[in-house]
């Protein structure tokens, strides 16, 4: 099967890509660049990084800009998938959905209307196991957004490791946050992964944070041979 992966550049879609590429032929990445920082469907911090990540992966990228209004962005998503299907003769689409019925069911409906398969390889997977897999498989994942108490700017730009997983699990026990950010508590950006042919090195960045909400902006980067 030839598949397109809905790709935000975060940990879930990159892990979904990793799993899909081990089973089927991934032909392209599909990204919606949302102008709405509080998009219902699409991860937003550093979304522009996806073009560099696609280059690092050696995969073509279909990128479509959306205003990010609640249901209108679904029309933009359908446009992006339609374009990717036509350009790359896709049989199906892969998402990094884990818990969100809202996200998964809307993509299922679009795929059904376009006669495409829809796959969610991380669906309902244990969040601790997902985080541990990322560390064990040498994904370099940094925290690029925090949006919940008691997270603060100290988390921004930090790399996911086993110690951070323990901290996130403690916060889950104490405050009920989702350790993998399923409730939008954290957003991530992937700088390196097993399928990356080159890794991404950050040369300049900035933190913008207020209280328990903040974003790590990646301003200047380069690709480095592995």
């Amino acid at each position, binding site marked *: *099967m030839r598949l397109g992966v809905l790709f935000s550049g975060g940990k879930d879609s990159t892990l979904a890509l990793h*799993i*899909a590429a081990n*089973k*089927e032929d991934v032909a392209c990445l599909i990204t919606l660049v949302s102008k709405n920082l509080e998009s219902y469907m699409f991860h937003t911090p550093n979304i522009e990084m996806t073009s560099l990540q696609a280059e690092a992966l050696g995969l073509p990228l279909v990128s479509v800009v959306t205003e990010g209004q609640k249901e209108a962005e679904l029309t933009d998503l359908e446009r992006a998938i339609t374009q990717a299907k036509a350009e790359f003769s896709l049989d*199906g689409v*892969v998402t990094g959905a884990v818990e969100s*019925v809202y996200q998964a*069911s*809307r993509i*299922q*409906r679009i*795929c*059904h209307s376009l*006669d*495409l*398969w*829809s*796959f*969610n*390889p*991380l*669906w*309902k*997977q*244990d969040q601790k196991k997902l985080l541990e897999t990322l560390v064990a498989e040498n994904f370099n994942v940094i925290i690029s957004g925090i949006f919940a108490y008691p997270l603060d700017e100290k988390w921004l730009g930090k790399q996911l490791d086993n110690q951070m997983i323990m901290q996130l699990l403690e916060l889950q026990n104490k405050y009920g946050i989702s350790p993998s950010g399923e409730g939008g508590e954290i957003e991530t950006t992937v700088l390196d992964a097993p399928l990356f042919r080159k890794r991404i090195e950050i040369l300049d960045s900035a933190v913008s944070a207020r209280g328990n909400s903040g974003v790590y902006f990646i301003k200047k980067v380069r690709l480095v041979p592995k």
Partner: protein
Amino acid sequence: MILVVDMNWEKGSLAYGEFVTPIVSAVEPLEECKVRHFSELSPKDLDASSKIVLSGTALKDFVTLQHLDKFSWVRTYPKPILGICAGIQTICKVFGESLTGCLQVGMTDITTVKPNPLFEGNFRAYVLHSLSVAPSSHSFTVLAKSSTCIEAVKHCEKDIYGVLFHPEVRNLQILRCFIELK
């Protein structure tokens, strides 16, 4: 031992994590669990199991409906079976019943229409199917409905249950009740 049958189009498919793993995760804390792809089921697997759960599949996957010969054991298996989505569609076809077109994706309202040991009352569940079952009343009885189709059935004589919705997504209690069936 609970035997979970992987109903996806091929062994080790990309859909395994979506349709089989969540069932295994729900069953394992309660009872030993083993997975077999439908194409590789052996009489030994069936004999060793105390109950069987047939998984669902991707919306475009109808492969089990083209391989009903692989499911003839359903007619004679003496212990409880739960078919989820493609699982119950396939079971119904094995018993010569009909399927009917009914596209449902997302959360839907379910109404229990007949008392049963798995669920009761009104509840919401995740559905993902383009076919529902349309059994004749002499072989299957309807347990639950939504506004658009039949959502759960039971064989009139055997402990064979079927749900068109996916209990592994938002209704784990239904899987637990099935595992605890005497």
